[in-house]
């Protein structure tokens, strides 16, 4: 059983992607043996009104809800975000809010970020923060996005004592300590290197209880993320937690 915490459909504005649709994502999942996936809309990052992409996404996965669980993307600096968030949860049944501070004009330490996270929690949504969506070393001249410092992400997490967060496409981040510390679940997409070395570091830093498999397809090739799990020195029980059990527990809609 494999659940993927980090997939996308749609278009990337600076590069042609060979596959963009929900059907193509399902084909890729079938070819890699991946059962279910959390999915977001890539163009939702770039639309001025990202909620239009949430509508598109809800429609695109409507007939595949047994395998594709849609995630909302909302820019909290855009008018009406609270209504949009509510619709994503209540009408589109999206269990996860993806925040993209790399591309949207706010810092996670801003009050607006705190407000949208609190509103998502109120709606019983999980909040997923992207360390980064794209490697900036080859950025387009039109891409003015920023590197989001790990300190900024952690400062936001720490405002919500005892809450669970997803941190996606980021290197391993040392979890805060304490009984009321936020619980941070990280995906393995950025944990790479020699055979299993990146995931091994993730295991040491985050523990097997807090790691989730993530591929970032259809933006990237999925096989490398699977090889990382296959080759990491870990027990069968640890690998099962990473491959599906943790995500299944975190997102009841994945069950």
């Amino acid at each position, binding site marked *: 059983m494999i659940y993927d915490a980090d997939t996308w459909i749609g278009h990337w504005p600076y*590069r*042609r*992607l*060979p*596959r963009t649709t929900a059907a193509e994502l399902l084909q890729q999942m079938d070819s890699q043996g991946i059962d279910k996936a959390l999915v977001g809309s890539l163009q939702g990052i770039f639309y001025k009104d990202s909620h239009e992409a949430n509508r598109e996404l809800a429609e695109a996965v409507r007939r595949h809800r047994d395998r594709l669980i849609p995630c909302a993307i909302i820019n909290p600096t855009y008018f009406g975000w609270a209504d949009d968030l509510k619709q994503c949860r209540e009408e589109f049944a999206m269990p996860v809010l993806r925040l993209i501070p790399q591309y949207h004009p706010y810092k996670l330490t801003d009050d607006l970020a705190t407000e949208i996270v609190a509103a998502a929690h109120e709606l019983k949504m999980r909040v997923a923060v992207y360390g980064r969506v794209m*490697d*900036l*070393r*080859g*950025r*387009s*001249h039109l891409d003015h996005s920023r590197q989001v410092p790990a300190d900024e992400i952690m400062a936001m997490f720490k405002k919500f004592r005892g809450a669970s967060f997803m941190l996606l496409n980021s290197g391993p981040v040392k979890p805060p300590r304490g009984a009321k510390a936020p619980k941070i679940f990280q995906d393995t997409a950025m944990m*790479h*290197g*020699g*055979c*299993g070395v*990146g995931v091994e570091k993730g295991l040491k830093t985050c523990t097997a209880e807090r790691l989730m498999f993530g591929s970032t*397809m*259809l*933006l*990237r*090739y*999925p*096989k*490398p*993320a*699977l*090889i*990382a799990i296959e*080759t990491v020195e870990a027990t069968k029980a640890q690998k099962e937690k990473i491959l599906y059990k943790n995500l299944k527990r975190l997102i009841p809609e994945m069950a």
Partner: protein
Amino acid sequence: MRIDCHAHCSVSMGPWPNHHQVVADARRLGVDKVCCSHPLATKPTDPKQIRRANNDIMAAMRTYPDVILGLCFIDPGHIRFAQDEITRCVVDSGMVGLKFYHQYRMDDPVFSPVIERCAELGVPMLMHAGHPTDEETLAAQPRISGADHFIAPAKLCPEAIFIIGHIGGGGDWEWQIKAMSHAPKNVYMDTSGSVIDAGMIEKAVRDLGAERLLFATDMSTERGVGKILDADITPRQREMIWGGNMQRILKMRKI
């Protein structure tokens, strides 16, 4: 036959992974041979350090003669020393080619005697390369070679064999493919690097031809192997990239 044409290892010096680990990873992922070098990132370089680094690779070759193929690192700025090191490492000790870092750009005339020597010997030259578009990388590597910087020297010396390092090394890989499509056929590109953008290998095959691509990892082992496995190309094209092309290059050796 799978030949990783761009990797690094270390026996006693660091910072590269230990040669035992490199060979274990290769065996685990079905890679038969690994071309290893020990480049120095400093500018200027110290000939004593270069000699030490190449000795380190020779030690790795002695330990794993069936797996590790040595690439001799040189800084072309040390004109006489570079020639002596080519004699010592390639002619006398069986290293299969050369490795350059970004001390000079590939179209700098300082390379001319080295290129002529490699053409005489029939051995390939692998260059750390890329087209970074972010300020940070450009500041750190002001003399990094893009694929466009290979065109003039490759035309000037058609007998020489050039390998553009890591299509996925970070930077605009689409630029690299386009620029290489203007280079003569004695220029190859390796597929290594941590960037695993979907469609990268397919586009390179379409625009350059599979016969000009060489499988490599540059220590991103899972990603290097995974992107070739995932690429939507024919089995024949995949075999050429895995090792067929590099085998052909290795047979061009004249000594």
